[in-house]
Every structure is written in structure tokens, then in C-alpha cells.
């Protein structure tokens, strides 16, 4: 591209404000890395292999919150998949006119909703509901499976958090799947109907075409639920005890930080350990976001000719 002198001036005048984005990113990563250095040097791999939180004695382990974060995110992604996929199919394939408008507006409304509202609703209504109608029946029928082996006492648990976060990311996942599904060229659909496929059969074929994009949506959803704080802090039950049972209270990294960071300056290394815990989460979620969006870009260039 040819740049005249005026254009160059224009370009340079835009630089200082625009590069503030770069400055913010570098400062952020440097801060987290520097702050977590202390604890990484002192505790090393013990941080990842034990789950003790004893600031008075200066012993820390992050295994329970890290596993809690991963499990709640897996549950969340699973919930979101089961509910978003039908929702996207119905919006594209079956709904028309005003009904379609209303349903997609509801999805949009859900998408921008402040998470604190979900958190309040989940803690007061969803958790008791899940306890009575999902956790207790599952516990009573499948006691012998370790995942369901403990009796849900309050309902606040890893399981409840996973489902609550799952509900809150439905619109996010749905939007990505919808966009992908709608960008599949019409020719494929015409080809399906041309060989006499029913709607179900053509949807099956379309979904198999969109599979990489759906997987990408799940990866992006996973990255987002890893960092979710308010819903997790309110529903997870805050316990450092590592259990194989989904109905026991647990911790996620963000819930741990939300409840411990305010007092962390009182104890040596507590702050640094918390920075280390968020460092892991930031690294995973940035990596996954890039991976997820690169899948979509590659898929789009292949399918949309």
C-alpha cells in the first residue's frame, strides 16, 4: 500500500493511543509473573501436588482448586453443549419470522447479562432445585459410583457450580455454533435434499460439516468458564477438601482468590501463591482462546469457498 506523507502522519498520530493495548498486556503479564515467582521458587511442584491451605504455618497447595476449576469447566461445557446445540439447530432450521426473532433476542439478552445476576439466581433457586431433583435422585440410585457417592448436604458443590456456569455460557456457545452453522454454503443443504434426505438426515450431515467449529466453540467456552468468578464463588461451597465426589463442596481457583486474596497480605507468600494460581489459569485460558479461534478461522477458509 502506498502511504503519502499525510497518511504517515495520520498513522503515527494514531499509534500512542492504540499501543496502550500493548502496554496493558505487557504490564499485566509481567505483574502476574513477577508476583508469582516467589512462591514458584519456594514451593515448586508441591503447589501442584498437594491441597493444603494453611497460611499460619505457611504451607500451600493448589491441587484442589485447580482440579475444581477444570472439573467445573468440563461440566459447564458439557451442559452448554447439550443445551446449545438443539437451540442453534432450532433457531436455524425450524423457527421463522417473529418467533425466530424472539428466541434469538432471548439468547442475546442472556449473553450480555451481568454474571452477578446469574450468581444470585443460581445460589437462591438453581442450587436447591438441583439438590432436590438431580443430586439426591442420582445419589440414591448410583451410590456405588464414586462420582455420586456422597450425600449432597447443602447442594453447594462442584456439580452445582459446573451446571450454573454451564447455563451462563449457553448464549456464548450458541452464538459461535449459530455463526458457523449459518456460514455453511447453501449448496451443501441443496445437495442433501437433492438425494432425498429428510430434515434430520440433512441436519446430521450439516453438523458433521460444522464439527470443527463446534469443537472450537467448546474450547472457547471452556476457556471462559475457567475464569468465571462470581458464579463459582457463590455456588461452589468453598472447601479445600479434595473429593472424588461431585456433590461435595470444593474450590475453584477464582473462588479461592475471591475469598482469600483480601486477607492474603497478612501472611507471607499467601499473595504470591494466589498469583501463581491465577498464572496457571491465565496461561491455559489465553492458549485455549487462541487455539479455539484458529480452528474456526481455518475451518471457515476451508468450508466457505
Amino acid at each position, binding site marked *: *500500500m502506498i502511504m503519502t506523507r*499525510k*497518511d504517515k502522519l*495520520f*498513522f503515527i498520530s*494514531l499509534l500512542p*493511543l*492504540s*499501543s*496502550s*493495548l*500493548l502496554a*496493558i498486556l505487557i504490564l*499485566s503479564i509481567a*505483574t*502476574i509473573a513477577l*508476583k508469582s515467582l516467589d512462591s514458584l521458587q519456594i514451593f515448586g511442584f508441591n503447589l501442584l501436588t498437594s491441597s493444603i491451605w494453611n497460611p499460619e504455618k505457611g504451607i500451600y497447595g493448589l491441587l484442589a482448586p485447580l482440579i475444581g476449576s477444570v472439573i467445573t469447566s468440563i461440566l459447564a461445557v458439557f451442559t452448554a453443549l*447439550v*443445551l*446449545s446445540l*438443539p*437451540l442453534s439447530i*432450532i433457531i436455524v432450521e425450524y423457527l421463522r419470522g417473529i418467533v425466530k426473532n424472539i*428466541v434469538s*433476542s*432471548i*439468547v*442475546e439478552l*442472556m449473553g*450480555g447479562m*451481568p*454474571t*452477578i*445476576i*446469574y*450468581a444470585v*439466581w443460581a445460589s437462591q*433457586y438453581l442450587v436447591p432445585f438441583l439438590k432436590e431433583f438431580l443430586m439426591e435422585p442420582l445419589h440414591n440410585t448410583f451410590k456405588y459410583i464414586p462420582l455420586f457417592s456422597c450425600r449432597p448436604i447443602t447442594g453447594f458443590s462442584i456439580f452445582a457450580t459446573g451446571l450454573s456456569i454451564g447455563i451462563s455460557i449457553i448464549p456464548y456457545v*450458541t452464538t459461535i455454533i449459530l455463526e458457523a452453522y449459518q456460514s455453511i454454503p447453501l449448496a451443501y443443504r441443496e445437495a442433501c435434499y437433492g438425494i432425498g434426505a*429428510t*430434515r*434430520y438426515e440433512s*441436519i446430521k450431515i450439516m453438523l458433521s460439516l460444522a464439527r470443527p467449529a463446534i469443537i472450537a466453540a467448546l474450547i472457547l467456552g471452556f476457556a*471462559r468458564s475457567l*475464569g468465571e*468468578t*462470581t458464579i463459582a464463588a457463590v455456588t461452589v461451597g468453598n472447601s479445600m477438601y479434595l473429593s472424588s465426589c461431585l456433590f461435595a463442596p470444593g474450590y475453584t481457583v*477464582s473462588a479461592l*482468590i*475471591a475469598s482469600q*486474596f483480601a486477607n492474603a497480605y497478612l501472611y507471607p507468600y499467601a499473595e504470591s501463591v494466589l*498469583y501463581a494460581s*491465577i498464572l496457571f*489459569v*491465565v496461561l491455559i*485460558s489465553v492458549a*485455549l*482462546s*487462541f487455539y479455539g*479461534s484458529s480452528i474456526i478461522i481455518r475451518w471457515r477458509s476451508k468450508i466457505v469457498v
Partner: protein
Amino acid sequence: MYSWRKIREKLFICIIILLSLLAIAPIIHLVIVVSINGIAIFVKAGTSFFTGLPPTPLSEEIGGIAPSIIGTLLMTMISLSITITLAVFAAILTTEFPKNSISVAIDAIAKSLASIPTIAVSMIVYTLVVVPMKGFSALAGSVALTIIALPYAYTYFSMVLRSVPAIYREAAFSVAMSRWSAVIRVLIPIARKGIAVGVLMTMARIMGETAALLFTAGRFRNKVSFSPTEPADAIPLLIFDYILSPYDIWHQVAWGATALLLLAYIAIFFAVKLIVKEVKL
């Protein structure tokens, strides 16, 4: 006689409809429940809910959430103005010079900033602003909110600017406009409604953010404060603290505050819908 293929078709539709209803049931239940609980609190507390101070755990009166409302307004205004300025400039740069390596870098940076969890931003701002300033402040809260909203606003604005058809730009150049005046006098006026939507959506995002304020704003709700350098409170913070507390009176206040936040969000949502509708006409 029904064939298996036709039965499968019907079965499929039934399952899909059922699961879709299950997917949107939570939001409908949520809106209804929050409205009912919130309106009950509004009626009980009267107008003092917007002007009074929060109750102590053992008091009988519900009181109000004035410090949180003022705090939210103050921090939203500060951070919105910074965010919009920075995001618009960044978006103009990357749409005007899309092939430039700096633009490519800004795109990637915005993407990585957007994927940093909000609680991490709160911890970063705690170290970079709160500790040097020796105290929590509305300003620190605004900085945290800006970091969170910036990549979001940037992505939206660059999408809006890119969606302006190329013919307008070509027309501007053909009458010998410089790049700068083409942007200011042609591109932005054409995209103004999209930009308005972007501003509103960024505002909704900033207003409802909780985690970013946890260790920055200070959760100070004993008096109404208008100063940006003093500790402040925000509506989401108040909800977060009160819903986790064991006191019934605080739960009630939290419900009222949640309803207020939902109301504000829905108002913004409808404003956006109205503007978008006009764009189509």
C-alpha cells in the same frame, strides 16, 4: 404406515424442542423471580432504597443502596470515557491500515486481553494501582473496568468500521479527501449507529462487572462518596457481599439491588434493539 425414517424425524423434533425449551427456561425463570423479589423490596423500602445507606445486619429497616448506585455511576462514567476513546482510535488504526504489522499485533493483543479472567485483572490492578496509591479507590476500580472493557469495545468498533461498504471510502478519496477527513467526515458518520450500539453494550458490560472490582474499588458503603480517589462501592459488589452473608436483611437488599441492575441492563438492551432496528430501515 409410518416408516422408521418418518418416526425418527418426529422423535428428533420433539427432543430438539424439549432441550431448547430447557435452554431458555433458566433466563425466563430468572427474569420473573428477580422482578418479583425486587419489586417486593422496592415497595417495602420505598424511595429511600435509592437514597439511604445500607442496613446493619440486625436492623429492621431495609435502608438503601445510595453509595453503591453513586459508585457504579461514577466508575462507569470514568471508565466508559477512557475505554471508548482508546478503543475508537485503535479500531480506526487497524481498519485503515489492516495489512500493517502493528495492526495485526493489536488484533492479537486484544484477543489475548479479552481472554484474561476478570479476577486476574483485579489482582493486577491491585498491585499496579491500589498498592502505590496506598488505598482502594474508585479510580483503581475504573482502571480495572477499562482493562476489561477495552478489548471488548475494540473488537466491536473494528467490526462496525469494517462493515462500512468500500464504495463510500472510494467516493471520499475520489473527491480528494485525505485519509483523516475520510474517516472523520464519511466513515464515522455512516457507522454512527453501530458506534452508539457499541457504546451502550460496553456500558452494560462495565456496569455489571463484579470480579474486577473485588480488590480495587474498596467495598466502602458507609457514606456516599463522589471523589474518584476515595474508596467506593458498586452495585454488583454489594450484591456479591450481601448474598454470601448469612443475614436475611442483607439478602433482601441484595434482591433489590439485583432487580435494579437487571432493570438497567434490560433498558440498555432495548435501547440497543431500537437503534439496530432503525439501522435496518
